[in-house]
């Protein structure tokens, strides 16, 4: 049996940065999994760009609950993937996962996304969400870049990229 779940790269920020980027991703795996835990200097959206593409080539459908109800919405013509409207917290780490399917394949790239933004606030300014995102491009993904809409991602934030390989 092949060993199929491998860490490709991991970063923990030693200083604040506007992005965490993993580049030169080999096409050796079937799927990619990106796990992020962190905070940022502003409550901007968590964003993910692929292959440095910042064009309006992304779309998503999001389902979330905030303690008072369940909601859904979709977005087309986005310039990045994003998991929810909550955005980064400046103080409490949020866990976000992106599962990117067939990242080296020939179809458009689809990701299943989760975000856990518990803020211990007792109001609607916290969310748990699941979503599906699309990048309208058939190119193999060779880089992923996590951002905060121009704000800095805070020191201590961690991102890890895994590869999952089918036999």
């Amino acid at each position, binding site marked *: 049996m092949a060993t199929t779940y491998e860490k490709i790269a991991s970063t923990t920020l030693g200083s604040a940065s506007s992005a965490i980027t993993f580049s030169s991703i080999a096409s050796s795996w079937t799927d990619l999994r990106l796990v992020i835990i962190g905070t940022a200097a502003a409550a901007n959206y968590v964003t993910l760009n692929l292959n440095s593409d910042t064009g309006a080539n992304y779309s998503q459908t999001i389902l979330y609950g905030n303690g008072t109800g369940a909601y859904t919405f*979709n977005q087309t013509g986005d310039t990045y993937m994003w998991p929810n409207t909550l955005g980064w917290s400046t103080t409490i780490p949020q866990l976000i996962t992106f599962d990117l399917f067939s990242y080296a394949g020939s179809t458009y790239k689809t990701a299943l996304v989760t975000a856990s933004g518990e803020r211990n606030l007792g109001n609607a300014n916290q969310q748990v969400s699941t979503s599906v995102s699309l990048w*309208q491009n058939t190119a193999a993904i060779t880089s992923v870049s996590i951002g905060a809409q121009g704000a800095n991602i805070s020191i201590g934030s961690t991102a890890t990229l895994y590869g999952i390989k089918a036999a």
Partner: protein
Amino acid sequence: MLNTVLGSLSSGVAASTSSYESIATATGTGSSGTITFSSIPSTYKHLQIRFMAKTTLTASAGYTPVITLNGSSSSIYAEHFLTGDGSTAQASGGSSPSTTSIQLWRAMAGSKASTPTMSNIMAVCIIDILDYASTTKNKTVRYFAGLECNYAGTESWVTLGSGLYAATTAVSSLDITTNSGGNFTTASTFALYGIKG
């Protein structure tokens, strides 16, 4: 350990590097509506299936395949799911083992010509079958599925679902079927993984 903790909190059951193994893969043929994984060894703690799928049907952007275990189509399954299509968030399901399969809600794209860019779009899904080799427990299934069509209407879905297989038999085979008369296209790929405990 880190991987295990992260996995338990997110969309799939991750594991340390040495305990997540590829068991088998399958690809759609365009002429069959069933994908079967059989002779699954009982040497793992959990199973995970990751797939992207499309049917040959053309009327809708999304369709709902189903999963059955051990070839059983008896009324021993139950299911619940939470789904959103960009317009309506809804929950659905039944509380008693009364269905003959577990729906994977909109986990299969359709080849709908009228939806822009549909030719390059696949639905994706991650299924976890917990403690599948137990001979004393009923089996719990969890899935996370999505289809994003880049369309402002209600033709995209994201779903989190759970299912019950009310049998204590170890799971040694599973079938994923289109359940709609269509076939899986040749772009459909399925991968079965085993996770050690």
